[in-house]
């Protein structure tokens, strides 16, 4: 038996050695700043998860590079309180299982200060609990699910998009006022995105007003059966709660079977440039497509925010084609810098959360940001957009409403002009 003893001793010795080495390795960081993960005197490390590949990547893959470009612009002008923002982008392919992996890598291994603008309702739902139990700020989620607005359960999570119920209510208000008497149908993603949007539509039009309801999943790119149902149901108006790839698929499939209703598309899936690129020669199908948005129009020539973002895009984003996704990414970056400034020079995770809960941020958005101690949802309103002669632009007033049964009201306040250098001040 002495051989076993020998082996056991050898293994134990190795184990002790490993422990000792690991313990030594862990003492590298200075004692002062070690208290706040991802923050040093010269840098703030922030991470995100994005679909850079896969069926949902169309358009969305441009958001994070745009945000990074905006941060580069801020960094080149001295950063925030002397700290440069380092934005680490991880691809999750819109697959919740991969999101689990990459977010853990960001938080546990890279020790990011915060997760910013993680994209997608299904992917981000899976990491909500992990981020909040780890007390990592989970800021400005790139999705309009109402799940982000739960300050008691998820105190570290804040939304960015106008939520899908508000969006549904505003789209349905347009239908009620302008397309009365037509048969209204709904085609949505089979998760909180589709369900929240449908809830908003039914809130305004009534629970029985939507004649045909169909859903899709991103892993199945054949939407012909659902579009066929919509056509068979005699739909004249179709509300789409779809990501851009599936908006294009739906409109293209409908054209193939000779189905041409009035399309009303969710803000997250209705960017003209993205859809036109997807449809190619068939982009004429987008003519007359209605939608909603709450950020400066990428096509506008007189909007100072668009001019600013376009300039930064040319200088720091490798001249990526300028569209709604670039505007979105830069608007997120602008709001994050505002939040960092409001949190003060002595940056902590709790300090940042407190600063966002104090609210009062004004930026490129047309609608008000709703942040408060008891409200973690993002923008609270939208304005209708329409494609005319290959150009997508706003029309009519901006509306605001709540996610419940409240009325849909006009919101008269216009966004302020951007600061001259494009960087917010305290």
């Amino acid at each position, binding site marked *: 038996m002495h051989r076993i003893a020998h082996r056991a001793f050898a293994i134990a010795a190795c184990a002790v050695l490993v422990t000792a080495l690991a313990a030594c390795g862990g003492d590298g960081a200075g004692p002062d700043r070690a208290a706040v993960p991802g923050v040093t005197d010269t840098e703030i490390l922030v991470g995100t998860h994005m679909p850079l*590949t896969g069926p949902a990547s169309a358009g969305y893959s441009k958001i994070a590079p745009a945000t990074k470009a905006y941060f580069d612009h801020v960094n080149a002008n001295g950063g925030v309180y002397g700290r440069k923002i380092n934005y680490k982008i991880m691809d999750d392919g819109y697959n919740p*299982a991969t999101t689990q992996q990459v977010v853990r*890598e960001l938080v*546990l291994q890279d020790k990011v200060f915060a997760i910013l603008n993680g994209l997608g309702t299904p992917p981000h739902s*899976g990491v909500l609990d992990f981020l909040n139990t780890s007390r990592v700020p989970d800021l400005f989620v790139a999705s309009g699910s109402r799940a982000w607005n739960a300050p008691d359960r998820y105190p570290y999570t804040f939304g960015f998009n106008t939520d899908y119920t508000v969006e549904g209510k505003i789209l349905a208000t347009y239908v009620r006022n302008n397309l009365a008497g037509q048969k209204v149908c709904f085609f949505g993603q089979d*998760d909180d995105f589709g369900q929240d949007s449908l809830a908003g539509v039914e809130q305004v039009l009534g629970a029985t007003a939507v004649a045909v309801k169909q859903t899709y999943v991103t*892993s199945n790119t054949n939407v012909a059966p659902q579009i066929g149902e919509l056509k068979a149901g005699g739909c004249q108006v179709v509300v789409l709660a779809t990501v851009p790839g599936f908006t294009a698929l739906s409109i293209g499939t409908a054209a193939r079977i000779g189905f041409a209703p009035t399309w009303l598309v969710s803000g997250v899936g209705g960017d003209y440039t993205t859809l036109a690129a997807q449809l190619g020669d068939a982009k004429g199908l987008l003519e007359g497509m209605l939608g909603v948005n709450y950020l400066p129009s990428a096509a506008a020539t007189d909007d100072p925010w668009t001019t600013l973002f376009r300039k930064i895009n040319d200088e720091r984003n490798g001249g990526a084609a300028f569209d709604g996704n670039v505007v979105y990414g830069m608007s997120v970056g602008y709001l994050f810098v505002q939040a960092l400034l409001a949190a003060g020079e002595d940056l902590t995770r709790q300090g940042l959360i407190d600063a966002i809960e104090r609210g009062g941020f004004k930026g490129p958005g047309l609608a008000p940001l709703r942040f408060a101690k008891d409200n973690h949802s993002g923008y609270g309103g939208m304005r209708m957009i329409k494609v005319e002669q290959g150009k997508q632009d706003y029309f009519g007033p901006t509306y605001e409403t709540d996610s419940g049964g409240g009325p849909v009201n006009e919101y008269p306040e216009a966004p302020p002009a951007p600061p001259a250098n494009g960087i917010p001040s305290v």
Partner: protein
Amino acid sequence: MTILRPLTTPTTRRTATLPRSTLLRHLLLAVVAGVGLFVVTGALEPFRNYQLATVAAYLCATAGLTVLTGLNGQLSLGHGALMATGAYTVALTQNALADAGRPGGGYLLLSLALGVVVTVAAGAVIGAAAARLRGPYLAGVTLAVAVVVPALTTTFRGVLNSEQGLPVHLAPAPEALGPYFPYERWQAWIAVAGALLTLVLLANLTRSRFGRNLRAVRDDEVAARLAGIHVGRTQVLAFVVSAGCAGLGGGLLAVLAQSVSPGAFSLTLSLYLLMAIVIGGLGSLAGALWGALLLVALPAATHMITDLVDPPPAVAQRLDGNLSLAIFGVTLVVVMIAAPGGVQGLLRRAGRSVGARWRVPTGR
């Protein structure tokens, strides 16, 4: 079906240095490994512990699969679906327990056990069909099982919540461990315990009469039948055992990720599992360990490579999702050419040549 010639398991030399009783020997090794890993988890950073736990969860599945494919000669492309069965069972049970006001940590054992039981039942059904099929037909049936998972979650969206999947309610680590105990270390303990249990059971099983039956059926069904072995029963049993292991592995993955979704158990996972055991060394439990390590290490290595090279955004976009698949494929090709016995076969050969040089008297 011409599967690679699996490694034969040598049982002779080890008996000289370790106890003669197979059970005692395996238990002793498991205890030593358990103590070693216990010490290691204390030293590792949370993310490394999480990776270790993931390796352990995958190991349950690869070990089960290597017994089925390597020792019994049945090819399964559907083990990802069996893992999904275990994972969804654990998720549904944990959430039901939490709703019933019993969120305590001890119930996790019940959920995991239930996950294994349900997967065993599913495995028995698939195994019964599989035992009647050979070669490509068997692969086809198991492939269909793997493909059907996302469709099932969409069809039964009321229970399984479509592609968004389900959250898995989990109790925090026991209070006795202190308020700041890293959760990932607790997860690693659970997963490692599950993996060691699986390995001990499988190691004993493969060295028993049943294990010899498995190999006899693999090598020649007619000869096995003449020797009095019930071929069909042996094949179904092998599938059931393998399914149970996959169910535990899937359940552990659900516990690690704190959520389940069909994307985690795609066809790619089933293929990865198969590639992993072939690269590791078909038919050997140690090979299953190498395979599980690779499953976790390769995607991480891909990220590191893209970080180091820092390619332009457009190229990085293309690489990110696909590079790990390419690396896995290339590794498979290289290993098959250079070392058909897999990593474990290579190590065994190296060990033998070293052993021949410094021949230690082993008492034989």
